[in-house]
């Protein structure tokens, strides 16, 4: 294994993010090739977490842009601070400055509201990590705009001029696949698909993230979740749900998965009415023990 990749893996594990070589390699390449990293995967497998951990590991800022329908340039890039401009005009009314001078003042950087994208490329000091979260939620128009910024790393503001990036930020995009992203955006990025974790990985995650959990309980939870993800559920629980559940079980001083305590805490990982009924039926039929898959 390449030394740099091992280091990234170590850095991430120090930040309590259990990773695997696939993730570490992709992150390393994104940094080395200076390309954005597009991460896809089911909900709750830790896509967003990668960017956060990366920022901490590199000891740099994390700038986050949460996407939603209707997100546009004024919320993502920059906007003029209108109220501040109007106030300044009022204050300057009696002054002897010429109209041009006044204009130059109100269209200068102090009156500019920097939104995440502009912040990311103008940040002082170290290159930040720019997280563009749930990019599938934004619309196509925004996607093409994003492409433009991500390929040039410069922004043109008519009143000021072109602002060039002081450095390339590390860009991480996440998507839940609620919409097909354009081929152009996909091509621009390195791709990483994060699947649900393997039994061993999930066990390690539980043990790392839930302090004070005993070995038996952690093992049973991890094995149980492997079965759960194979059931036909409307909302398949991710790692986030596993951790919530494990934390709840520890708080209830459970030391193994018993029928009663599982019933009480079903809500931690079952988030759908139909699924809940399915689980209750399984428990009523006494299938709990069978759902904790035996170790290979």
């Amino acid at each position, binding site marked *: 294994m390449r030394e740099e990749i091992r280091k990234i893996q170590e850095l991430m594990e120090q930040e309590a993010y259990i990773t695997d070589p696939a993730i570490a*390699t992709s992150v390393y*390449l994104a940094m080395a*090739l200076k390309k954005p990293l597009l991460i*896809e995967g089911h909900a709750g497998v830790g896509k967003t977490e990668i960017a956060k951990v990366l920022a901490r590991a590199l000891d740099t800022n994390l700038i986050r842009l949460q996407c939603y329908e209707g997100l546009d340039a004024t919320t993502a890039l920059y906007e003029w601070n209108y*109220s501040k401009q109007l106030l300044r005009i009022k204050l300057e009314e009696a002054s002897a400055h010429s109209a041009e001078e006044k204009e130059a003042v109100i269209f200068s950087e102090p009156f500019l509201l920097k939104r995440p994208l502009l912040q990311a490329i103008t940040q002082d000091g170290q290159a930040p990590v720019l997280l563009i979260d749930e990019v599938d939620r934004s619309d196509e128009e925004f996607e093409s705009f994003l492409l433009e910024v991500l390929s040039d790393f410069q922004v043109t503001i008519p009143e000021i001029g072109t602002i060039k990036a002081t450095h390339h930020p590390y860009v991480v995009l996440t998507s839940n696949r*609620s*919409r097909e992203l354009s081929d152009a955006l996909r*091509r621009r990025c*390195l791709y990483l698909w994060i699947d649900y974790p393997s039994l061993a990985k999930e066990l390690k995650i539980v043990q790392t993230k839930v302090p004070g959990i005993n070995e038996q309980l952690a093992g049973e939870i991890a094995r149980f979740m492997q079965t759960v993800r194979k059931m036909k559920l409307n909302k398949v629980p991710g790692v986030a749900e596993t951790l919530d559940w494990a934390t709840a079980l520890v708080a209830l001083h459970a030391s193994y998965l018993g029928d009663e305590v599982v019933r009480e805490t079903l809500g931690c990982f079952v988030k759908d009415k139909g699924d809940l009924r399915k689980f209750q039926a399984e428990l009523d039929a006494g299938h709990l023990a069978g759902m904790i898959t035996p170790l290979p």
Partner: protein
Amino acid sequence: MMESTHQRDLLTTTVRFCRALRERGLLVTPAEAIDAVKTLNLVDLGDRQEVYWGLRSVLTSRVEDLPIFEELFETFWGFNGSSPQSLKGLLGGMPPPTTEVQEPPPTPKRPTKGMALSLERWLNPDEGQGEPIGLPGMSDQEALIDKDFSIFGAEELEEITKVATRIARRLAARPSRRRKPTRKGQWVDLRRTFRRSLKTGGDPIELTFQERKTRKTKLVTLCDVSGSMDLYSRFLLQFLYALQNSFARVETFTFSTSLSRITDHLKGHPYLSALGRLSGDVRDWSGGTRIGPSLTTFNKEWPSLVDKRTIVIILSDGWDTGEPEELAEALVTLKKRSGRLIWLNPLLGSPTYQPLTRGMQAALPYVDVFASAHNLASLKTLERHLYL
């Protein structure tokens, strides 16, 4: 000396590998090939896994690519049981003979005409359920997505529902580019603010705002249920049913020799009882096709359903026994009034199919989007066309 030969071999193999991936439909252009070569300099060539992960993140771009990538990686750099850590395997390597060996994916069979399945038979739950239902793993989904609807089993309908829900979400009130004035909103409405400032002597005391208008798209679907569509209409109907129940502004019609509005049949009823009601009310199921007259009827009787904010989807194979002129005329009217006219033809999924039927020939000039609807993947791409 040996080293550089190896290097060159590696380069050639990588370029070939990229080409093979591109032939299988991955988004690999020369830019990606360059990145792939750069990647090989960045990873540990002695670690096969690392090379695999590295190239995978550079050369794939969606989860559907992963199985293809894995298969080709094996073909190009397979070891068949020898040590996975072998450096020789990657450098000396056994490049595959040619890139032409890549077979195109099996093409869906073109459905034969006239295998009439009546609606009543669909209601029979025993039909078409041979083997037990497997757990949905990734590979299952993969297989499902390319599968022609004509060979779909009943249990796979669940996937169709998922696609319909996605489309419904897509169509649900989308923010428009236009803005409307509001009391509190995202942007200051400068024009109004200045206008209002006149009454306070030019001092803009009261700020007025703007926000985005929401754009409400409507959908009208017209589904051909004539005999020639039998193999497909069952699944398309499931799709329409799911769409009808997850999206409020959709109207659904069926036609063969005449037109029936089935919006109310589908809405709010369980699927099987909706089918039951349909079989009672829709007379000419699996009959002949008269697309032109059916569309003319639609234009005449339901003009209020279609306006510039409406997407009209016609699902038909274009086998029309009516006059092509009438079809063309009806489509001209429909195209003028609607925002977008989409024709989905299940037969288009077959690579040998040419839209040569008289009906299809007459229709093509007036259609904004002509696409296939023979499998899940094609329904998923429909999502891309649904904008105004």
